[in-house]
């Protein structure tokens, strides 16, 4: 029961706002540090691939971006379901806050994939099952974001987009298997991405570090977005008014920090 009270406590925007504010700098810091370490290891320490030479190093961006984009869609759909079923405002906001980051990772994944494909298979784009599904994932993200921004009423916008995210998440596996079947029906490619033979342990570690860096980045950015959305949606609530008043007094350090990050959100 204490557990449920814990969740109830954080599901209120009022308590979540300062909590998120405290988390953001930590996540951002972790993201920066891990990215620097990961890039250092990836670009300077790990050995070149025996077959692809140095061009393979883009996988340190590519693979984590792809993982994150798929994971974020599932997490987004999960929050959307929680928001829609139990009518939790914060969960709906969470789904909305994750979407732009997920779309960005998908775009990075496609872009780096194309750049990697050119030296590897001599073409920027192949109609491979994974690439095609992945492109469709980008479309799903775009649909989600477009629907959310096209509806003026924030409540309807978040509910409608939540339902779309759930429908999309159910369809992703169906789309993937259809595309895969379609792909085997037509000429299969000899070199599929991902079949990279032996992986050096340092490569694996570097990749994992980059994954965690992306994780931290995604959480930090999502929390920032949620904070600004909370302020916007709850601008008539008394606690927001108090928060803004007291931060104008510049009396408490905590509030200054909060106001700064709130400004950061808008930037």
């Amino acid at each position, binding site marked *: 029961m204490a557990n449920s009270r814990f969740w109830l406590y954080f599901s209120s925007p009022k308590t979540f706002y300062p909590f998120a504010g405290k988390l953001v700098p930590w996540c951002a810091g972790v993201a920066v540090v891990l990215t620097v370490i990961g890039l250092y290891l990836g670009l300077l320490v790990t050995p070149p691939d025996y077959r692809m030479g140095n061009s393979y190093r883009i996988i340190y961006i590519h693979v984590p971006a792809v993982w994150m984009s798929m994971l974020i869609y599932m997490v987004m759909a999960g929050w959307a379901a929680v928001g829609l079923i139990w009518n939790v405002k914060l969960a709906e906001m969470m789904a909305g806050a994750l979407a732009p980051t997920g779309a960005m990772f998908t775009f990075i994944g496609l872009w780096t994939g194309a750049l990697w494909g050119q030296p590897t298979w001599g073409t920027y784009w192949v109609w491979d099952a994974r690439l095609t599904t992945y492109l469709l994932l980008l479309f799903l993200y*775009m649909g989600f974001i477009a629907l959310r921004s096209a509806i003026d009423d924030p409540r309807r916008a978040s*509910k409608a987009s939540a339902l*779309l995210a759930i429908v999309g998440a159910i*369809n992703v596996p169906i*789309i993937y298997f259809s595309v895969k*079947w379609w792909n085997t029906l037509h000429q299969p490619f000899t070199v599929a991405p991902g079949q990279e033979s032996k992986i050096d342990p340092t490569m694996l570690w570097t990749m994992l570090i980059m994954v965690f860096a992306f994780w931290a980045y995604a959480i930090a950015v999502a929390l920032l977005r949620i904070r600004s959305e909370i302020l916007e949606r709850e601008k008539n609530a008394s606690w927001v008014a108090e928060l803004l008043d007291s931060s104008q007094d510049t009396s408490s350090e905590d509030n200054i920090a909060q106001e700064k990050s709130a400004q950061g959100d808008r930037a």
Partner: protein
Amino acid sequence: MAEPTKHESMKLCPKKLGLFTAFRLMLVRDLTLAMRRRTDVFTTLFFFIIAVTLFPLGVGPEMELLRTMAPGVIWVAALLASMLSLSTLFASDYEDGTLEQMVIAPYPLSVLVLGKLFAHWILTGVPLALLSPLLGMQLGLSTDAIQVLVITLLLGTPVLSLIGSIGAALTLGVRGGGVLLSLLVLPLFVPVLIFGSGAVEAFSAGINIDGHLSLLGAFLIVSIVFAPLATSVALRISVE
């Protein structure tokens, strides 16, 4: 039909009318309405014909090339035609307040939606499938392949109506709704497109198409069960 709604009906509509009446009410009403404004139906059909006709003009008149492209071209055109007609699926009910009355009618909303969708399929999917032999011949498909094309269209177009109705319900009254609708539902149409046009291609290549047809059938069953439920949730969100 979805199980939970059936169960509800036992409890809720014990008087005179059952679920089937609700289904038939919307079906008959929408068909009557379509008869009174026939142009809507014909617009969709002409769009289908024109879209397919543009392809030979775009890629050249080589029959061999057109024959290989035919299943894909016809299916994509059917997809777009069906999607265009979806944007008007709930629009007039939304504007004149009928949708509100449907939402607060003593029937499960999903059954009313299913009735509307069946009407939509009769008005778009069936005519598209019946017209497709003509277009198939234009693009040089063999008679047998055309038969397969008609079967896949008959199996696949109801799925398009069902899945598309979720998008149509979500974009009700939203600015730029029509374009937005295509952004939302076209990615979801991909599996139907793949197996619909794939079946015709496979048939022409002499491959057994039972798998394709069973999968299309499976999509149909799954979407009949779930899409009306999702659509009714979306409609409730949209009428708020």
